[in-house]
């Protein structure tokens, strides 16, 4: 039975969707833009939910918006930017630089995964979907999700082990 998407429930998932966006983009500015665009799309008009819930709907929209933006950006001419300006515009809300750097390492490791593995890991470990829910949202068998999450965690662990502590710094 279809039901209307609940705008307040959508807003209640903001933090998880923001973390998912960070894991996709590995950039706070890009993640904010992506989340903003995702919510703008979903909330632009009343929508009916045939299966799943608001969180799954948001994740699918986030994924689609991300890949559309990536394709668009790949076609766009690149402009030179002042790196100092970019760095200054990326304030770290975390009061502890070391902790912020470690979180950046985690998001960076996830963002470096191949798309299929990254999406599975984000759906299960960042967003908190079950394997069954992630399988439905991503349109692949549940066993595939389980394998991808397992292997993605393995790669994330390798990435984190390979980063020497003195070199860890936020992007």
């Amino acid at each position, binding site marked *: *039975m279809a*039901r*209307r998407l609940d*705008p*307040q*429930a959508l807003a*209640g*998932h*903001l*933090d*998880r*969707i*923001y*973390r998912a966006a*960070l894991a996709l983009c*590995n950039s*706070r500015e890009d993640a*904010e833009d992506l*989340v*903003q665009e995702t*919510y*703008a799309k979903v*909330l632009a008009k*009343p929508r009916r939910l045939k299966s*799943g*819930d608001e*969180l799954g709907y948001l994740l699918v929209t986030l994924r689609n918006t991300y890949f559309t933006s990536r394709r668009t950006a790949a076609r766009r001419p690149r402009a030179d930017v002042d790196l100092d300006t970019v760095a200054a515009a990326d304030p770290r*809300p975390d009061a502890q630089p070391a902790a912020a750097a*470690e*979180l950046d390492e*985690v*998001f*960076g490791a*996830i*963002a*470096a*995964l*191949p798309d299929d*593995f990254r999406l599975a890991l984000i759906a*299960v*470990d*960042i*967003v*908190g979907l*079950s*394997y*069954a*829910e992630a399988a439905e949202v991503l349109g692949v068998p549940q066993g595939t999700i389980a*394998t991808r999450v*397992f*292997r*993605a*965690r*393995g*790669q*994330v*662990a*390798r*990435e*984190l082990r390979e980063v020497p502590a003195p070199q860890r710094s936020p992007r």
Partner: protein
Amino acid sequence: MTEHRVPEEQDITEADQELAIRAIRATERVTAPGSLRASVERMAAASAPAPRPWRRPVVLGGAVGALAAAVVVLVLVLSGSSGPSVEQATRVALAPPVTGPPARRPGQEVLSAEVDGVAYPYWSDSSGWRAVGTRRDTVGGREVMTVVYADARGRRIGYAIAAGGALPADGGRVVSRGGRDFRVLRVRGADVVTWERHGQTCILASRDTGADVMLGLASGGAA
């Protein structure tokens, strides 16, 4: 950003899994910036349908006015004397959530929210009830945190922990499930199930979901 080859399953150790899960769990403290939150909340408010005019609920015989949908679990810390009554706590826990839900702890059957060491259960896999929001209230001088769950049909579950002090549970009937005793009550039109967990009192209440469903949730592994 360099994309790496993902290792095969046989090359991944349990320690790899634990390291990754621990690291990913640490990201749960990352929250959306205030400006983004304000923007999303504005969009959500603008998108919300106009509230329906309030109408007095029509009670049809034994239909119990079961139009409102909410299941509430309250966990109340056992201790001293004073504190909210079961009725007060039920009223608070039936209220809608005001903030987002806690995430699942990776690899665990609990959410990343707890009060006094009692974690809220992750029910999505086992029963389809997903955490959809949270609220905090002060009742009888004690803080009560509620995590609200919902199923695919839109029915709701709230799980709360009141710090400090026991709520005496009496009345109703006692039902045994899995070697534990649960008390089934009716409070202000809601079905209520109370039980003890790790020395704490739990209360489950619903207006649209039967006590049997609540008992199933309450007697589940993580509950």
